[in-house]
């Protein structure tokens, strides 16, 4: 009896080792760096060597010193545009297609897979692929436009400051639409068909049915897609880097906060004479607060919805 209890106690001890590897790796590589980034922003940095405490100077620089302030607001504006255009193009399209797939269209399985395929590629591959497709002289898009008699539409899509960012975001919509569609579809499928049938008998049809019955009932997936799109848009880096490089060319028209951040922290350009870790960290903190505040707000909205239902 005594022996059995001691054996059990020993097991009781060993079990506490179970979460330790996960805890250690997660704390060291996720929690520590994000906390450290906060402290870095309050110091002066010489390259990657930490200098003296400077309080809020880095933040002041970011918001008041040329060219940082101009580049910051320019990039922030681009990120907002990124988010809005993805919501309007990618997510509206994803919603419409999810609804069509939901209405028992023939070949639904194939369609879902087809919409989803781009999501399997590496973002850098997507960026480079479309850089070739959108090439002004030999790219597939302009060649196609010329073939169908729309030669006047052909443009140097990525070389023109008026179209470059829009082109990149539309490529991003191509990449992410299928994923948003699957999330919407999961939301649609969670509504029982009887509810929809009942609403239909009560006279709700077509667009009214979608707006008054279906959309309120799948609010949760709509908000999840919105949060995803928001975080994604405010972290936009790879696609811009692949298609327009670390300067957000042409003339900073495709510069995003993440590209600006990369340039300041590692590039030794973009206004700073050399690597500017302090300024970069300040920028990271500002981005962190934008993302965290907005995600919390969206999630708060979901919770409210759940209580209401």
């Amino acid at each position, binding site marked *: 009896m005594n022996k059995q209890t001691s054996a059990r106690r020993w097991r009781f001890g060993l079990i506490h080792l179970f979460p330790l590897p996960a805890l250690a790796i997660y704390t060291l590589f996720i929690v520590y760096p994000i906390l450290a980034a906060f402290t870095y922003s309050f110091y002066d940095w010489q390259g990657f060597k930490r200098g003296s405490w400077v309080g809020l100077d880095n933040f002041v620089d970011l918001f008041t010193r040329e060219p940082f302030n101009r580049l910051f607001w320019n990039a922030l504006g681009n990120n907002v545009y990124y988010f809005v255009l993805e919501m309007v193009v990618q997510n509206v399209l994803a919603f419409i297609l999810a609804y069509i797939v939901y209405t028992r269209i023939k070949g639904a399985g194939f369609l879902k897979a087809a919409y989803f395929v781009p999501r399997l590629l590496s973002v850098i*591959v997507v960026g480079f692929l479309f850089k070739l497709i959108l090439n002004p002289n030999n790219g597939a898009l302009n060649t196609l436009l010329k073939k169908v008699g729309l030669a006047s539409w052909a443009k140097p899509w990525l070389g023109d400051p008026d179209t470059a960012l829009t082109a990149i975001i539309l490529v991003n919509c191509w990449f992410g639409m299928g994923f948003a569609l699957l999330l919407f579809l999961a939301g649609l499928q969670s509504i029982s068909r009887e509810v929809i049938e009942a609403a239909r008998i009560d006279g709700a049809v077509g667009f009214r049915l979608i707006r008054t019955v279906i959309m309120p009932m799948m609010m949760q997936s709509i908000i999840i897609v919105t949060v995803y799109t928001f975080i994604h848009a405010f972290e936009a880096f790879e696609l811009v880097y692949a298609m327009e490089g670390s300067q957000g060319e042409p003339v900073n028209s495709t510069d995003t906060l993440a590209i600006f951040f990369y340039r300041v922290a590692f590039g030794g350009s973009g206004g700073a004479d050399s690597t500017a870790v302090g300024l970069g960290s300040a920028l990271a903190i500002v981005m962190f607060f934008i993302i965290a505040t907005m995600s919390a707000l969206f999630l708060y909205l979901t919770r409210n919805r759940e209580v209401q239902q």
Partner: protein
Amino acid sequence: MKPNRGLRTLQYATAYLIAGIGLYPIFLMIFSSFKSNIDILKNPLSLPKSLDFASYELLLDRLPYFQYMGNSAIVSVTSVVLIMCFGALASFYIARYPFRWNGALFFYFLVGMMIPIKLGIVPLFLLMKQLSIINTLWSVILLYTAIGLPLSILILTGFFRTLPKELEEAARLDGCSDVQTLWHIMLPLMRPAMGTVMIINFITAWNDFFFPLIFLQEESKKTIPVGMLTLFGQYSTEWNVLFAGLALSSLPMLVLFLFASKQFMEGMTAGAIK
């Protein structure tokens, strides 16, 4: 559910037209890789005249492509294995033991899903230097493991909680230790959840570009996505080689998707909805 015929036709046309537009760039990438450079530049839209692997030969000649692929494979497989082991251990502990701090521990892990870790890249860079694992595959392996753990723990803990407690008690009575119970009784039942965890994390690790861009500067350590940067930097006029590089680096995922499209799509959405 019978919408009128005009609307139905419009729905079919929209759905299939957009599917076509969606797939076309991928087809273009694949068939261009079988064309000659001049043919691509002169007739970007035409189909290849024959199945010519010359661009692939050039690609392998120009770049240490198999080395990139080997590095990518090592990184993805190792980080997925680590996530599955450590994630399962932590989730088993959180879901099946009644310790007071389990709720807080679970919450601590879940916070990680909301942290945009790219913003911690400077401290991470210095940390990797301090640990002397910069320019080694371990830098990205450990980082991907850390990034993958929160969501994986969420999925696995949820699944562990659905398994009947009696199974575990029966195993205990038969004299299984905690480790034996987890390994012999619980894990075989966890296959669906483990599959989801595997797919989500494998795609992330295989496709990521940002972290290897910063941590793996040495040519012999590069993964495929960073290798693409070298390719486009050095051979930007040889479009056939570029297309071959893009196609070859996407091939593993596309082939896996052909065999397990349902698992891919369910796995990736399961991660988001939870």
